[in-house]
């Protein structure tokens, strides 16, 4: 049985590899000059005064696509929350305060504010420089967890009221939808970037609705990561199964 399975895997893998190599041979060469979509995206982004073309693609030209991505994110987090809730046959055990080596503690508490501010900066400058809601949100949320390294789990739980983050996750999703609907009410298409003036190129308030959608995504990603990590940490550190179950 096992041997048969390995053979099947080898045959399937070889076939897949052959097909992939054949496909690679037919792709346009690496580093070629022809990028019709890219060129048009750059033009559209410049026309709407967004310096970072990638943000323009994500939050303006393909904002509808980002709505889908955001729903996947939201649904995945919701699934984790449901799967990792405390079951009836489990109980919580407070972990004892752990000893933290002094250099680790000092370093973590020193880096924490810097990392947090960096994350927020990356979110805020998404339409200008590399970065945006997706990256900055993850940075800010993981930065918060340096507190777990520097102090202990209890300290982290005190600065992280989970309900607030769960609410802000949902609020951010709603904000994105409301911004989309606002452009419908203004008489254009859903999520079309016509609501706000485009502003001066290369300033914080440029790009029309791009900074707003970007901020909504940043808030959503940050709270989603905090909620996810909170539930995994709960499982790993606090929740114990009842004996004899």
């Amino acid at each position, binding site marked *: 049985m096992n041997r048969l399975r390995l053979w099947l895997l080898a045959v399937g893998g070889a076939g897949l590899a052959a097909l992939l190599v054949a496909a690679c041979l037919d792709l346009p060469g690496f580093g070629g000059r022809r990028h019709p979509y890219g060129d048009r995206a750059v033009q559209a982004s410049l026309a709407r005064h967004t310096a970072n073309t990638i943000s323009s693609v994500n939050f303006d030209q393909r904002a509808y696509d980002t709505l889908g991505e955001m729903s996947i994110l939201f649904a995945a987090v919701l699934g984790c929350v449901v799967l990792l809730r405390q079951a009836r046959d489990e109980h919580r055990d407070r972990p004892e305060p752990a000893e933290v080596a002094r250099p680790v503690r000092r370093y973590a508490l020193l880096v924490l504010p810097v990392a947090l501010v960096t994350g927020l900066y990356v979110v805020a400058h998404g339409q200008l420089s*590399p970065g945006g809601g997706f990256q900055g949100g993850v940075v800010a949320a993981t930065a918060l967890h340096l507190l777990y390294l520097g102090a202990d789990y209890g300290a982290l739980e005190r600065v992280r009221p989970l309900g607030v983050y769960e609410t802000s996750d949902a609020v951010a999703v709603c904000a994105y939808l409301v911004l989309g609907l606002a452009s419908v009410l203004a008489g254009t298409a859903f999520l079309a970037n016509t609501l706000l003036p485009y502003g001066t190129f290369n300033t914080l308030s440029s790009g029309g609705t791009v900074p707003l959608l970007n901020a909504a995504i940043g808030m959503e990603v940050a709270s989603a990561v905090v909620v996810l990590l909170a539930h*995994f940490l709960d499982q790993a550190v606090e929740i114990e199964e009842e004996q004899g179950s």
Partner: protein
Amino acid sequence: MSDAVIVVVLLLVAACATAAVVQRDPARQALVLSVLGVLLAALFTVLQAPDVGLSQLAVGSALTPLLIMLCVRKIRRRGRPKEDAR
């Protein structure tokens, strides 16, 4: 010049991906995955995609390995009797 850098980083990524698959212990695999995350971030940067590199650095080298580690810890703790649990 930049071509040579790209080739070197590509080969490093391939080698590290192999290592991540061959390493059967999930806890060690998480470490290899985090190295893979850093290598991918470097690759994306030389491919002129700083946005994606930043994202990969935050997610691939910190978030995913951390989740895997927490999962491993939970399952190990379950497997052990209560006396020496920690």
